């Protein structure tokens, strides 16, 4: 499932995911509350989640999703690159953190790493890797 409110970027993410044959995008949504509702309904294996979302921010949405769809693995794909935000995201239970400016290089690597059970954080964030 892809949760992103800026449509050109959502298309970019979907195009990148389409390059991974094992994956199928089953749902695209553009706000936090809708993401929680769809996660409950579809129980997706993987959720790519932005933080700056309308109605409910990505962090709060992730918190709720992890309660109602505990098997879903969450990767944040966001513009935020502050170590505090990354730390908070991983503490919440996210498996991966991709900074959007590095998405072309990192997105597919992050997805594969998380699906294999490893954690992934984009390069260049102080205090991580």
């Amino acid at each position, binding site marked *: 499932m892809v949760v992103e409110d800026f449509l050109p970027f959502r298309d*970019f993410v979907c195009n990148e995911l389409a390059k991974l044959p094992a994956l199928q995008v089953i749902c695209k949504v553009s706000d936090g509350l809708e993401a929680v509702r769809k996660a409950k309904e579809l129980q997706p294996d993987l959720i790519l989640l932005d933080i700056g979302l309308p109605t409910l*921010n990505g962090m709060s949405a992730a918190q709720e999703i992890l309660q109602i769809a505990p098997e879903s693995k969450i990767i944040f794909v966001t*513009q935020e690159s502050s170590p*505090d935000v990354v730390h908070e995201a991983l503490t919440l239970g996210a498996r991966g953190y991709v900074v*959007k*400016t590095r998405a*072309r290089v990192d997105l597919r690597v992050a997805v594969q790493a998380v699906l294999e059970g490893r954690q992934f954080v984009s390069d260049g964030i102080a205090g991580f890797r």
Partner: protein
Amino acid sequence: MHKFWRSAKQCLFAGAALICLTVVSYRLHLNLATTGFLYVIVVVLLSRLGDFVSAIVASIVATLCLVYLAPPNSSFRVDDPLNVVAIAAFVVTSVTIARLVSLVRKQADDALSSVSRKVVEAEERERRRLAGELHEDIGQRLTLLSLEVERRKTDLPNPGTPSGMDPLQKEILEILTDVKALAHELYSPRLDYLGIAAVMSSFCQEFGERKNVMIDFTSDGLPSFIPPEIALCLFRVLQETLHNAVQHSGTRQFDAKLWSTLDEIHLRVTDCGVGFNFEKATKAGGLGLNRMQERLKLVKGKISIDSPPLGGTTVHARVPVGFGTDSIQVVG
């Protein structure tokens, strides 16, 4: 307690003013009506400057002065029923005037506070809107542009080797960093999901890098939940104070500390700069001091500024927590 002492001081002041007036009336041989009229003026002035309790006390003191201290040739004789009615009329008139003036004052204060609140709410709404535009639109477009440049770099004959695209991408990323910093300064969505201490710490780091100054931020013993309106208010005070300090202090080293006591949250920003004249700056309406004071008033907070000449500046804001605050509603 502070209010009690203020009232007590006003009562003493009123008593002294009425006794002085009595002496003057005595010396000038003023008649009873003139003296009574002057007493009413004192009561009205006190109602305007002080509170209702001190105005009532002044009314009672004025009545006693009329009965016992006013010039003997014009004092009331309290055994005369007509005089008792006149005294009662004086008391009722002065109490009514005191009540009316205090009511008008309260309504004016409420109106002012309501206007301040609306101005703050409107300002926050606008900041949030602009930050959203910058972050979610321009920021995202710059991100996509950078990703597109990166894609084109891979299409070059020798991908991976330095090319003219590199400085272009670097420039885009620098603009993106500035846009994000500006957006965060206008409104930081991190306040919605990170604690106030983490948000302030990030801000101090980013702001310090941008302005090329050192800001040492520390926090200590904060409660797990701080009402959003208090967090936002203290964050704005930190921003405004650091902007002022960087611009006017003449130094490049600043300390900011956020901590809590049993019932208050404190924010203190200090520097070792040249200091400034607080009275002058407030009257000039500059440095955003009035705005900080108004914002703090809305969450029942206070600010104190200590800035001796060449002795650095300490700005200390404190906001009570645990008591009801008039929350600022910001609808995005």
